[in-house]
């Protein structure tokens, strides 16, 4: 297991170097395009400064930023005791040094992600839609998948990579927009007065690079994130000893048509399933952040013999029809016989549509810290956290109720 983590750390390093080179190239050419004499060096220096600042930010608060842009809110055990239970269970199973912080995203779209600097400072975020849709075994599968991301040090890599990708996108956008507006404002003067042909070529390279760099960075980021999903699935099964739980959860997630509005191109690879649903795109294209979900389900359901990595690899080869190793060789040497346990995936949580919608809405209000007052007459009052009065009169029976300040 340790070597799997080492392999991941190595890959993170290469990705980091790759993205840094891309960023420096971008800085050099944009700098040269702006000022042909000393601009290249200035561009590199500026890119390095931005990189340094952003790395500091992503090291100390990258996960906070990602959680904030995803509109995730930290919750207490009172809001969803079962979720806390399941996370605690997986923390013990995976031997994490600290309990991950738990966040809920107020969205009916079922999805989840993990983030953080290291296993000591990690967080798991799930959407309200996921909680209302899955039973305990399925939720356990999803939480185990996220715990695996924490355990495999994917979270740090993903957090860094998404901030780096964000930087490259940002610099390119600023440059391209700047070009566009300066050309509108009579930029012809500067291009014809100095430079000449060499300058024109550099300008073209700078423009091409600022269009292509975000694409390259995205491809690099996505390529590695796809493989990590398989690995996290495999580790999740090892933790829960119950592949059907995750399979059934993925099936429910794939079947949902709700859209996660807070997900962006940068945060998409973090989630358990790609939150950006685009019509008419082939699921397994280069740009996809995740392996096709139906393939993941098929592999999980193919695991008949046991829950170890070698069993996952066997199922993977069966489904994909190739012998390409998805689990690093070190993970396959462990031949411990891990039996699959019995569970209740697919059962439960089938209430009428109205009731489950109401449960989902109540959960979202709970996350938003609404106060729930149940009057004895049967009327339920849901009071927002900023409510100004000290007491509320039940409009049905006239009883007075105190509000929590």
């Amino acid at each position, binding site marked *: 297991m340790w070597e799997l983590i080492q392999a991941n750390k190595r890959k993170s390093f290469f990705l980091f170097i790759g993205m840094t080179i891309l960023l420096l190239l971008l800085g050099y050419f944009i700098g040269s395009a702006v000022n042909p004499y000393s601009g290249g060096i200035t561009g590199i220096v500026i890119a390095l400064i931005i990189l340094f600042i952003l790395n500091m930010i992503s090291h100390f608060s990258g996960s906070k930023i990602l959680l904030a842009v995803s509109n995730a809110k930290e919750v207490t055990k009172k809001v969803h005791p079962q979720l806390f239970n399941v996370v605690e269970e997986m923390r013990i199973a995976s031997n994490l040094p600290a309990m991950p912080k738990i966040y809920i995203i107020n969205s009916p779209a079922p999805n989840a992600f993990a983030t953080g600097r290291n296993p000591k400072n990690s967080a798991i975020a799930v959407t309200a839609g996921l909680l209302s849709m899955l039973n305990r075994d399925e939720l356990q599968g999803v939480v185990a998948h996220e715990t695996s991301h924490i355990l495999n040090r994917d979270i740090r890599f993903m957090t860094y990579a998404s901030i780096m990708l964000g930087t490259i996108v940002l610099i390119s956008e600023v440059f391209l927009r700047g070009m566009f507006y300066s050309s509108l404002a009579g930029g012809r003067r500067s291009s014809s007065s100095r430079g000449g042909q060499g300058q024109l070529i550099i300008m073209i390279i700078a423009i091409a690079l600022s269009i292509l760099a975000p694409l390259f960075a995205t491809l690099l980021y996505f390529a590695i994130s796809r493989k990590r999903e398989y690995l996290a699935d495999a580790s999740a099964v090892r933790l829960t000893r119950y592949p059907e739980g995750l399979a059934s959860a993925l099936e429910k997630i794939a079947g949902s048509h709700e859209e996660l509005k807070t997900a962006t191109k940068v945060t998409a690879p973090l989630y358990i399933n790609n939150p950006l649903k685009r019509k008419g795109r082939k699921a397994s294209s280069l740009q996809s952040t995740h392996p096709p979900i139906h393939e993941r389900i098929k592999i999980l359901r193919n695991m008949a013999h046991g829950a170890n990595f070698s069993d996952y690899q066997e199922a993977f080869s069966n489904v994909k029809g190739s012998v390409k190793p998805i689990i690093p060789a070190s993970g396959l040497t462990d031949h411990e016989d891990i039996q699959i346990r019995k569970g209740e995936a697919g059962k439960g949580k089938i209430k009428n549509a109205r009731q489950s919608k*109401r449960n989902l809405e109540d959960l979202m209000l709970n996350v938003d810290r609404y106060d729930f007052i149940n009057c004895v007459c049967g009327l339920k009052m849901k009071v927002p956290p900023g409510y100004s009065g000290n007491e*509320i*009169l039940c409009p049905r029976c*006239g009883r007075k109720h105190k509000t929590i300040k």
Partner: protein
Amino acid sequence: MIILELHQVEIDYCPDCKGIWLDTGELELLIEDETEKKRLLNSFKKQEHTKEKLYRCPVCNKKMDKVLLDDEGDPVMIDKCKKSHGLWFDKNELYLLLDKSNAGKDNKVLNLLNDMFNYETGTKGEGA
């Protein structure tokens, strides 16, 4: 504004002024009769000059329009968000509107509103 729930129906309610907020599309859900629904929804008429105070939309906080509903009988003046976030009914207005429309005595929503706010008797609670 607080949310009230009774028999699995939710209503946004202001405990101070007893007004009711309906998000866009909720009024349509409340009226069961199809022809009545169409007639009522087509009867929206914007009022330019009115003495009634202009309210702000609880969603976008922009000033709302005053609109007349159901101008065939006794019209009811309600507030409608300019950005179509929803409708605001002052105390009793929603009940009056649904009572007047040909929903009849069997209208579940009418009964629910009655039950929730004691509109008919008005003795027990503060709602009427």
